[in-house]
């Protein structure tokens, strides 16, 4: 490191040299430090850097927003480990979805770990997102089933300067069905087991007049014991009867929606008709065929499905 008096000297010579035309600078420096070649070289090097630096750091640092695509790096979480949200202490960022961010958090009162979905400021889509958030809380908390994620708490708490909404729920340690499938097709017996669990969860929901409407492998968690947990009731319809006369929501992906829902004009007569729903994600488990057409599915798998 340069001693500070040396630095003061360098600065003074640099400024004085800059007051001169470039051609006069070497002569000036030679005269200013006749027996200190190192000092002269230092100043000369800085002058050379100055000549090249032009726009270097002249524009302030900027951060670019990128498209929210699969290639894009993860979004920047609003909360970080150690931040507090009401009675919860953030432990880790799990992921971000269309309507919020999900964190692992610790409930300080009970000492248990939870998953907490935080409703972030969604800009223009704010109202729609808020409705979806509330719907999720209402729908999922009305259900008590081992294959449906349990909602613990819904509330608002301050985060920095703002008040944000959150839903605290059971923390399912495992992977999404999508992630499980990306590693390869599942054996038929495991697959059937998952299918039955999902079907049971949906049947319970339908029994209470709640239709999920957005079932897809991303919304099904498989925990370490192999139990399936249905998540994200954000698009659920509560009071099913009115739903049977509506168009399907655009956010549900056609490849995941069961035929009765796809054919929106021929509305199903009862909620039970929406039960074939899990067959699509499950069919994919066998064949890994994104269209879910079943064309390449093994015939025995299909027969087993139908019989179950």
């Amino acid at each position, binding site marked *: 490191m340069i001693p500070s008096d040396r630095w003061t000297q360098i600065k003074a010579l640099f400024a004085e040299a800059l007051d001169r035309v470039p051609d006069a600078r070497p002569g000036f420096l030679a005269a200013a430090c006749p027996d200190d070649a190192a000092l002269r070289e230092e100043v000369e090097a800085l002058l050379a850097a100055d000549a*090249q630096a032009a726009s270097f750091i002249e524009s302030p640092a900027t951060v670019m927003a990128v498209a929210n695509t699969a290639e894009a790096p993860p979004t920047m979480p609003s909360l970080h480990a150690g931040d507090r949200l009401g009675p919860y202490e953030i432990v880790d960022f799990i992921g971000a979805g269309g309507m919020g961010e999900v964190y692992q958090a610790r409930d300080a009162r009970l000492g248990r770990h939870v998953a907490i979905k935080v409703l972030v400021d969604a800009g223009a889509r704010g109202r729609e997102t808020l409705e979806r958030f509330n719907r999720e809380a209402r729908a999922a908390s009305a259900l008590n089933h081992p294959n449906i994620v349990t909602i613990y708490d819904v509330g608002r708490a301050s985060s920095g300067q703002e008040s944000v909404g959150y839903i605290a729920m059971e923390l399912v340690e495992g992977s999404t069905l999508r992630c499980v499938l990306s590693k390869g097709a599942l054996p038929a017996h495991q697959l059937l087991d998952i299918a039955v669990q999902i079907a049971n969860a949906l049947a319970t929901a339908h029994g209470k007049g709640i239709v999920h409407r957005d079932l897809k492998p991303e919304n099904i968690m498989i925990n370490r014991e192999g139990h399936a947990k249905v998540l994200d009731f954000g698009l659920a319809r509560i009071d099913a009867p009115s739903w049977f006369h509506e168009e399907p929501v655009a956010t549900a992906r056609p490849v995941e929606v069961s035929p009765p829902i796809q054919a929106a004009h021929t509305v199903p007569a009862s909620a039970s008709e929406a039960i074939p729903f899990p067959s699509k994600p499950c069919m994919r488990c066998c064949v890994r065929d994104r269209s879910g057409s079943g064309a390449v599915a093994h015939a025995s798998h299909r027969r087993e499905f139908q019989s179950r």
Partner: protein
Amino acid sequence: MAQSGTRAVTALLHAWTKGDLTARDRLFSHVYVDLRGRAARYLRRERPGHSLQPADLVHEAYLRLTDQQRVAWKNRSQFFGVASQMMRRILVDRARAHQATKRSGAWLNVTLDEGAIQSQPRSCDVIALDRALSELSALDPRQGRLVELRYFGGLSLEETATLLEISSTTVKREWRIAKAWLYRRLAMPTAGCRD
């Protein structure tokens, strides 16, 4: 909430002026959390390709977090100093996280030397700049603050002069040598520290 937050920040600034270092630390964390959250929300909402200007966030934070009628001149300077420093930390943290994930995609696009020629530190990253700036601060603390305010805080030359209570001429002179020093440091990593 916003009201009490404003009062809290203003009180922290006052306490810090009186020498309360705990207040300073609390202010740091308050401003950091606020700016980081804002930056995250901004980026989530914004269309791809739009860039976030730290200056906007820093100015907005000042208006939002402080009670301007009760903030003394010295406090104003302190606040911008803190906010620029926190902006720097946010950008560097992000760059580190980005580097750690080793994912492609230009999430963080730090504008360095747009008009550069030759094989100069055009694409040098914010982490290297941060490191070089820390070295510069050790050598010359005022230059370190100046670069922080201008580059990370996005403040203009005049604003920087006012905040540092020096003339614009001095800012220009100091800025020029700081820039040359950093440029040289980044272009030739061993330069300037042979002693």
